[in-house]
């Protein structure tokens, strides 16, 4: 086992232009040949055009999250969710299904809800991202959050941050939803404790008062 993973010492000069396949990478790693761990893109010709290829090592990335800039060296296969949670300590979005089925990882990207477990971090660069942590302003809960509290919209609370972000985005778009709108609009989030009744009341509460 080697200890050089955090501080790569060998720059990426001698790789072939086609890049290193995952299989090659494994082979190389297996025989302890140093591979670059942070590198810029390599340009390859594909369909008559020059296309940048990132990785397989770590790539410097930059993000705009909750109005702040964040930087990290990450492999291209890292998801936005894992970057938020493991690199930037933004753990409101949860990893549950890890494949766009449950909504616990919901964040806003370009002001639209996305399942951050199914967005690659490298593709989320420079796009405005808002997580549940951004909703509280000056220590005060957002009206949607306040309605969740008052209407008991959480139990264990693991699905709650994803639900809060989804509900906020939904109400921004449908300030006066019908019950049918709510059923359809929030079907992308799942809860195991069964807090849907409280969430339903919370949405009705905000819709009535106006967020």
């Amino acid at each position, binding site marked *: 086992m080697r200890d050089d993973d955090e501080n790569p010492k060998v720059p990426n000069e001698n790789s072939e232009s086609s890049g290193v396949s995952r299989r090659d990478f494994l082979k190389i*790693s297996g025989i302890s040949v140093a591979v670059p761990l942070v590198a810029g893109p390599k340009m390859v010709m594909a369909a008559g055009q020059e296309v940048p290829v990132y990785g397989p090592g770590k790539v410097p990335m930059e993000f705009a999250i909750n109005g702040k800039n964040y930087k990290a060296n990450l492999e291209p296969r890292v998801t936005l969710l894992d970057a938020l949670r493991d690199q930037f300590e933004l753990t409101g*979005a949860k990893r549950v299904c890890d494949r766009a089925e449950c909504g616990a990882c919901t964040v806003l990207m370009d002001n639209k809800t996305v399942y951050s477990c199914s967005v690659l971090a490298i593709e989320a660069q420079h796009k405005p991202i808002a997580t549940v*942590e951004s909703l509280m302003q000056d220590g005060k809960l957002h009206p949607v959050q306040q309605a969740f509290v008052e209407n008991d919209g*959480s*139990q264990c609370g693991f699905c709650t941050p994803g639900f809060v972000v989804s509900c906020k985005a939904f109400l921004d778009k449908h300030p006066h939803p019908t019950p049918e709108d709510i059923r359809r609009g929030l079907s992308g989030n799942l809860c195991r404790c069964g*807090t849907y009744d409280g969430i339903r009341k919370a949405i009705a509460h905000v819709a009535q008062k106006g967020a």
Partner: protein
Amino acid sequence: MPDYAWPDAQHRTLIGTRVTRVDSPAKVSGQAKYTYDVHRPGMLYGKVLRCPYAHAKVVSIDTSAAEKMPGVKAVHIVQGPGANIHWAGDDIVAVAAVDEPTAEDAIRAIKVKFQQLPHLVSDAEPPKGSAQEEGPLSVDAIDDMLDNQVPANQMVSTIQRDGLVKKASEDELKMLKADGATDAVLEAIGSATIHPEASSKPPSNYQKAAAQTLGEPDKAFAEADVVSEGLYGIPVITHCCLESHGSISEWTDQEHLFTHISTQNVSGIPGQMAEPLKIPATNIRVHQDNIGGGFGSKFSPDRWGIFTAEVSKKAGGKPVRVMLERDTELKVAGARPSAYARVKVAAKKDGTVVAWQSNSWGTGGPGGGGMPPIPYVFNIPNQRQEHTAIRNNIGPARAWRAPNHPQAAVLTMCALDDLAAKLNMDPVEFFGKNLNLTKQRENIYREELGIASELMGWKQKWHPRGQAPSDGMVRGVGVSFHTWGGRGHASDCDLTIHPDGSVDLKMGTQDLGTGTRTCILMVAADTLGIPMDAIQLQIGDTTYPPSGGSGGSTTIGGVTSSTRRAAVDARDALFAKVAPALSVQPDQLECVNGKVSVKGDSSHSLSWKEACSKLGAMPLTVRGKNPDKSKPPDLTNSGVGGVQMAEVEVDTDTGIVKVKKMVAVQDCGLVIDIKTAEGQCYGALIMGISYALFEEKVMDPATGRMLNADMQFYRLAGFSDIPELVVHMMTGKGYDERGVIVLGEPPVESPGAAISNEVAHAKGVRVPFLPLTPDRVLAALEQKAGA
């Protein structure tokens, strides 16, 4: 003797009112930290290579390539060559690396050879004559009985009759005691005959698990006016906790472990980790702020909790995180046993139920599992039951919110409902007529049945079975009854009043989202006479006084009782210090709204802060306990009843079942917080809709693997599946004075039965097995049309 009893309604300020959950703001803002969110400095990421086969022997393991990979810090063989693996997804090798991608690559670089062995993953009806007779018991079998709430005297007689496979060790006895074994049971285990030959016999997949007869069933069936026979069942489902199982472990020195773990049993974890790690339990600190769901599946550190600590040791003590991936969570980290039965029930013409006979079977995975308590709730005078446990390779079962009761409710209530239909009786009238069979809870059920009928509008909605007006969509209503034992678990807490007036309360319990924090604070604040936010509550750490695991719905009883005793003692000790300043005897003082004053004379008073300053330099700490026979009364009790009704709509063209309305009427003794109590019932109804209509762990007979180990095909109820829900908590006379009993589990017991019954009512045909999926509904309709 101070008065520890719960104050009556006139003397309560918070208990029994609607209080908003105190931890909600942290949860809605994303600030609440769960085990999965813990990021320790220098933390390594663990991944596990798992066996792809349902039954196999490990032949060889080659980890050399993984060990050489940059960033890999530890490789640990969990089950080495020669190990027998009994379910797909079991742990073989664990690795820890600097990040998750590297750990994943390392797993792919490990080569393991398995020898595949024959497997069984089916829980279909056992072939005739296949079941092995009951033999000597294992400790596991006795533990199963405890889980299933088998009465102590029955356990004693079974142990005396069958003997044991081997002598129980001291640790096993300790474990059984912790799981609720009474002294009589432990004594029976100690004096039981040992049959060492039994453990060498290869066990059959099918084992007779219970056979009992009560009264004279043959005579009763022969003399009955109406006999109804049917097949009913409920499959294996998984817990699907949204926060998967797992932990982060680090060695603070050679001998001391610090573990963050997702658990329902904070105080109980060190004792379970000590022996495998060969360090004293006192050297293990466990911490958890919040847990993302447990439902009965998170009492143990599990094998992965142990090897996470071992991997950390190999990595020089660095923190190592192992949280299960979603597919693994569904495959191995929790399943509710299945239960199926051929049931025959008989009644007199007037609807009086006289006899029950059931041949049941089901699987709890490799352990087999026990018989659900059938017939459920209704103590039918003449009964005969036989149960066969199926041991198979689907992965281990775990306690699932009210172990065995949802199964029992389906098998019993569906059979009785079919009997009512055969009698041409309205089920409410039929069940009402037989409520005397529920013995001591008859009055509670009768009152609840009346309220539920009103809330459902049962009279307007009920029609004789199958006579629903139909235009492709038919509606029906169903009813079910349930019960649960409960009582408060052992719980200690320390309540400290500081001379500056601040108050803290420490307890090694956990809040599963059931409102535990809120209820503790309500009781403490109500008793001390100060606002809830004046008390700092700290839970979730083994440095606090131990409190029991959150199982059997015993948490609220336990934590509120210890809190009440601590708060009464602390208040009285404070009054003793304050009394001279107000020139009265301590028992003449009261504290209301943060003001300590002479009873009946509010002009003689001190603010809370002034009063606390009389403590002098040292804070005042008192220990509250439950149970505590020296400080009566028992503040908890046992035994609750609930009634649920459901209304459904069935599309006879597509077979799709939609629940339109559900009503839950629930007794839980004294309700501490009505708001979170209702939340438990709403949640239970929704969970019930989920398992009634969608949930099933589907196993592939060919490969032995779970086919739907993700959240798309293992479907949970979503927003669009939730109907109108009505919850009514029973309170006041007949309920409050019984003390705190239970709530988390009972309301999830009935929905399956109630929904199945309503579908039967709507369509005039029984869909025998849950979940009521469109294919099953259409098949039942076709069978009826062809009959």
